[in-house]
C-alpha cells in the first residue's frame, strides 16, 4: 500500500506539473517509445480533457476572449484549481474568481460577469426539481398570514447583479452574432427554470430589491417596507402581490411559508 501510494503520488504529481518527473523511473521503456514519451501521453490527455470541459461550459467566454486568451485562461485555471469533484460537470465553477484575481483578465471586468452568466445557466440546467407553489395556494392564505409570509424558491433561481452590458454580450455570442462594445449598464438579471427550460430577464430595480429580500427569507411585510422607496403607500401592497404572483406563475416559488408561531397557535386552537 505504501509503495502504491508513493507511485500514485508521483504519477499525479507529474500530471499536475510535468517538471515533477519522479514517476518516469518507474515506467518501462520500450524500443518504440521511452518512458518519458509514454508518460507525456497521460500529461497531455489530462490537460486536454480539462480544457474540453471548460470549452464546453464556457462557450461564450471562449468566443469573447478568442482562442489565444481563452487558452491562457484555461492554462492558468488548470494550474490554480485542480479538480476536487468526481464529475467534470463541476470543474469550471471557480473560473470567475480566477478572472477577477489574475492579469490580464482583471482589467476586463465584463469577463467575470460573462463567466458568471454561463455558470448560472449551468447551475439552473440541473438544479434540483421541486413541487412549485400555486396561485390557488396563495389565494387560500389566511389574510392574517400575509404579513409574515416568507417564500422558498426553486434552486434554479439566481440573481446576477451586473455593472456592464454583459448579458447583451452573452446573448449575441450565444446567437453566434458579433457582440456589442462593452458599456456600463447597472442591471440585475434573473435566471430561473420553467418546465425544465432555463429562462432569463432583466429586473426593474424595485423587483430586484423585492426578490433579493424574498430570497433571503425576508417576509412579505419586509418586502412592502422596502418597496415604499419606489411606490406610494397605496400602490405598494398591490405591486408586491403582483411580483409574488408572477414569481409563482413562472414556477420560481416552491413553498409559501406562513409564520411558524402563527401556525403553531392555529394548531393549538383546535
Amino acid at each position, binding site marked *: *500500500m505504501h*509503495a*502504491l*501510494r508513493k*507511485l*500514485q*503520488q508521483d*504519477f*499525479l504529481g507529474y*500530471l*499536475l506539473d510535468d517538471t515533477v518527473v519522479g514517476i518516469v*523511473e*518507474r*515506467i*518501462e521503456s*520500450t524500443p*518504440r*517509445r521511452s*518512458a518519458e514519451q*509514454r*508518460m507525456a*501521453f*497521460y500529461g497531455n*490527455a*489530462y490537460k486536454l*480533457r*480539462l480544457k474540453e*470541459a471548460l470549452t464546453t461550459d464556457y462557450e461564450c467566454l471562449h468566443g469573447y476572449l478568442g482562442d489565444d486568451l481563452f487558452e491562457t485562461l484555461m492554462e492558468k485555471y488548470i494550474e490554480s484549481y*485542480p*479538480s*476536487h*469533484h*468526481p*464529475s*467534470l*460537470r463541476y*470543474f469550471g465553477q471557480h473560473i470567475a474568481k480566477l478572472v477577477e484575481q489574475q492579469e490580464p483578465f482583471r482589467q476586463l471586468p465584463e469577463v467575470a460577469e460573462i463567466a458568471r452568466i454561463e455558470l448560472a445557466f449551468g447551475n*439552473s*440546467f*440541473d*438544479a*434540483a*426539481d*421541486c413541487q412549485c407553489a400555486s396561485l390557488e395556494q396563495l389565494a387560500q392564505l389566511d389574510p392574517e398570514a400575509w404579513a409574515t409570509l416568507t417564500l422558498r424558491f426553486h*434552486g*434554479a433561481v439566481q440573481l446576477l447583479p451586473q455593472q456592464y452590458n454583459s448579458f447583451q454580450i452573452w446573448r449575441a455570442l450565444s446567437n453566434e452574432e458579433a457582440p456589442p462594445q462593452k458599456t456600463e449598464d447597472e442591471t440585475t438579471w434573473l435566471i430561473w*427554470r420553467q418546465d*425544465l427550460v432555463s429562462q432569463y430577464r432583466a429586473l426593474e430595480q424595485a423587483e430586484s430589491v423585492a426578490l433579493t429580500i424574498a430570497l433571503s427569507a425576508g417576509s412579505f411585510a419586509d418586502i412592502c417596507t422596502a418597496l415604499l422607496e419606489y411606490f406610494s403607500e397605496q400602490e405598494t401592497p398591490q405591486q408586491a402581490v403582483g411580483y409574488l404572483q408572477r414569481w409563482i406563475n413562472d414556477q420560481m416559488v416552491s413553498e409559501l411559508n406562513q409564520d411558524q408561531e402563527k401556525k403553531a397557535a392555529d394548531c393549538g386552537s383546535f
Partner: protein
Amino acid sequence: MRRPFLGFGLGLRTEHYSYILEHKPAVDWFEILSENYMVPGGKPLDYLDKIRNDYPMVMHGVSLSIGSTDALNSDYLKNLKKLMRRVQPQWISDHLCWTGLNNTNSHDLLPLPYNEDTITHVVDRVVQVQDYLGQRILLENLSSYVTYKNSEMTEWDFVNEIARRADCHILLDINNIFVSAHNHQFDPESYLAGIDSDRVMQFHLAGHSYNGEMIIDTHDHDVCDPVWALYATALKRFGAVSTMIERDDDIPEFPQLRQELSIAEDIAVRTLQADALVLSDISPQQTHTELNYARTA
C-alpha cells in the same frame, strides 16, 4: 454459471435523447454513464426516467477510483446508490484503475501496477463497495499506455485474481484489449484465453485512433475489422455475453450507430448457436436477481 444475457445495447448519449423517445428504436438495453446523472435534477434526470420506462439499463461509472490509495469517497458512493435506486439497473460497473489522489481527480482512467500488493488493496475496496451497494459490481479492463517496472504478472492474471478474491464480475472491453495488446506488445488472444469465463458479464466494443506508434482509445470511430475479429474470438471463448458499443466523440446519428450494433448481432449469430442468443427474462423495471449480493464471509 448461467449468465444473464441482455442482448445488444448502446451507450445512452444526450445527442440521441429525442430520437429515442420519438422512435423507440429496437435496442435491447442502454448503458448510462453514472456521473452524468449524479446531478440534483433538471433535464438529465427527466430524460433518464422517460427512457428508463422503455428500456433496461446498466450503469457504468468512471470515478469510483477503486485502485486509489485515498479512502473510498463516501459521498460518491452515496450518490451512486441513490442513482441505483432510481434507475434499478441490471448491474453497475466501473474500471479497474485509479483516477485521483489527495482528493484531486485526474478525470482519467490510470493504470495500476499488476502485483500482489495492488490485488490485496483493490480486493478489500471492492468488497467494501459491494457490501455498501448490496450487489456485485463489474470491473472493466483498461486501455493503457504505460507499464510499471513493479508489475509482476500479466494483466489478465491481475484481472482474474481480483475478480476471484473480491467475488465481483468482469466487464471485458474488447477494444481495450486490442489497444493495450498493440501498445504493450502482447497477444490479445492470449488475454481472452486467460480470462475466467465465469466472471465475464458484459462486453464493450468501441473505435480507436492510431497516432503512428500507439493506439489511443478515443471512442470516436466505428469499430474496426480487427476488433470485430477479436469480438468473434471472444464469443467463441465465452459464449453469449451482453454486448454494447461505446461512442463518446464524433457521435453519429442514432440509426447509423444502430446499424453498427447490428454488425455485432450478425457476428454473434454467425459465431454462436442461435439458441444461445435468447434474452434472459427481463423487463425494463427488473433488476437481475443473480447479481444480488450477500457476503457470506
